[in-house]
């Protein structure tokens, strides 16, 4: 998908036009912003026709939000990567977008340089965990007594938990690698594994956790 010049093609989906134009200006130097949309319908149509490398989706939007966009685009365009970008959300909404297929979640207060790095990382197939997402995930997997038939998908390894904890404390991947005396590649592997578990786990706790948050 990437064109000859090597610039990544990025598509923006957000219902706030002001924010769209801001991000477009910030990313324009490093990426090809091939299109933008402000609602689910036009986003699905636009992504299908422009076939971007990375789609930045807002979590909350009229008509189903980022989750709806991902669920409708992924079957026809499996190579497109999604990065959820939002201002401040309920944990269950963020987890829902990740489970729909987004490869990461960052808040809109992220610096332009960090956002650019996140886009590159997502395009490369890695996961992008902001401190807040790491916190959500630790919370979701926190309940220790594992069900009897718990599969490996439903548990974080101690090492994965450690990595997530560092990210939640505000450490960048590189700093986590230094602190744990491992390579940055290993950090990325751990984080991708967590993302994988988050997306595929049928863990009862994940649903119960979301319900707790909404109801109790």
């Amino acid at each position, binding site marked *: 998908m990437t064109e000859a010049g090597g610039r990544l093609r990025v598509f923006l989906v957000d219902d706030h036009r002001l924010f769209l134009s801001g991000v477009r200006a910030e990313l324009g130097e490093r990426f090809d912003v091939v299109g933008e949309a402000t609602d689910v319908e036009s986003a699905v149509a636009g992504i299908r026709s422009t076939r971007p490398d990375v789609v930045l989706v807002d979590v909350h939007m009229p008509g189903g939000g980022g989750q709806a966009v991902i669920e409708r685009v992924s079957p026809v365009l499996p190579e497109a990567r999604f990065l959820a970008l939002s*201002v*401040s*959300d*309920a*944990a269950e909404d963020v987890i829902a977008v990740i489970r729909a297929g987004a490869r990461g979640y960052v808040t809109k*207060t992220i610096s332009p340089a960090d956002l650019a790095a996140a886009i590159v990382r997502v395009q490369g197939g890695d996961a992008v965990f902001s*401190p*807040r997402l*790491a*916190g959500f995930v*630790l*919370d979701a997997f*926190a309940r220790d007594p594992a069900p009897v038939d718990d599969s490996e998908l439903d548990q974080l390894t101690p090492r994965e938990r450690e990595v997530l*904890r560092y990210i*939640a*404390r*505000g*450490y960048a991947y590189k700093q986590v690698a230094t602190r744990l005396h491992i390579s940055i590649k290993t950090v990325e592997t751990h984080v991708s594994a967590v993302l994988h578990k988050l997306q595929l786990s049928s863990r009862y706790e994940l649903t119960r956790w979301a319900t*707790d*948050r*909404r*109801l*109790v």
Partner: protein
Amino acid sequence: MRRTLQASTPTPRPRRLAVLTRSRTDRVLAGVAGGIGERLGVDPVVVRLAFVVLAFAGGFGVLLYLFGWLIGPEAPEGTEPRPAPGTETGVRQIVSVALVVAGGLLLLRTGGLWFGDAVVWPVALAAFGSAIIWTRTDESGRARWLRFASTLSGRPLDAAALGRPTRGRIAAGAVLVLAGMATFLVANNSQSALRTLFFAVLVSVTGLGLILAPWMWQLGRQLAEERRERIRSEERSEVAAHLHDSVLQTLALIQRSTSPEEMTSLARVQERELRAWLYGRNGRRAPAEGSARTLGAAFDQMAGRVEGIHHVPVDLVTVGDCPMDDRLTALIDAAGEAASNAARHSGAGLVSVYVEAAPEAVSVYVRDEGVGFETGNLPPDRGGIAQSIVGRMERNGGLATVTSKPAEGTEVHLRMPRRLSS
């Protein structure tokens, strides 16, 4: 009939609406009559009464209703076509429906589906009268009822407010209902005095029901609607009040502020507050002032305070939550001191606070990527660390560790056991 069609066209309604769409909003049983009434531009009361009359024709009306229930899809939610305010069911419409019903009755009578002349015709007559009284006119049903009630109670009435057609219709309808009851009694005149008495009572009750039931139904629906509307508007005004107190005030402050740092911190404080209000953890709505009840809420307040004072963003991530107690208050005070130190002295653009409430202990990390310092060589102005952080934690049975290196930032780790091991 032409008037009916004209009356129904001005309402913007989906073209594909079938004749037998069942109404969602206007229903006694399944909304069949409501749907037909809305479709034809006739008051559903008329349609309902037509069904009742046809039910006496050997149960044909019941069958017809069940058929309508079976094949009629429910109207899509929200798109319910409400009759336009101007849709008035005149006597002409009622007569049209009555004639159709009468034709149907004659047909069914020939076909043998019949409970007998002595039952069906009086019922039809009474239903016709009831329809004339109770169909929707351009006034609200309740207002009409109130006038009707005051007519009955003999109170002085404003002659201008009491529309002549209304009064005329009430009179005509009542006469028809009474005529129906009388016909029934005469036709069923039996030898037994007891049976006559029984019939008289039954017929009176039925007649009264025909006069009053549609009103009671409509009144109940109006009250329910009013109640819904009131709840909705209360909710709306609560949201409006909150947005006004918080968001609009902050936006005004941002417009008046001169430095970008101040704007950013105002925006962040507001974001934190609105976020807590919208998605309050575990359903709590964070109190704007006063003491927080849970650890998460208390840390939210602490972070907001530090941001407000030092104009440096505080990134707070919380895992787990628990109720507050004295020792956790000490923990939050120590964490607040650490965050203030980071905001004041480190020069970093961001303070990260991570809180994890595990069953055995609460861990807090306060971290910045600022200038840092030699831990063995504290600057004199940072002696606060010893007393307000380490001292406070140890006095309350906790632990504080400060990790820092010049140019590599500082991290303060606080740990407070949840229960004292006794």
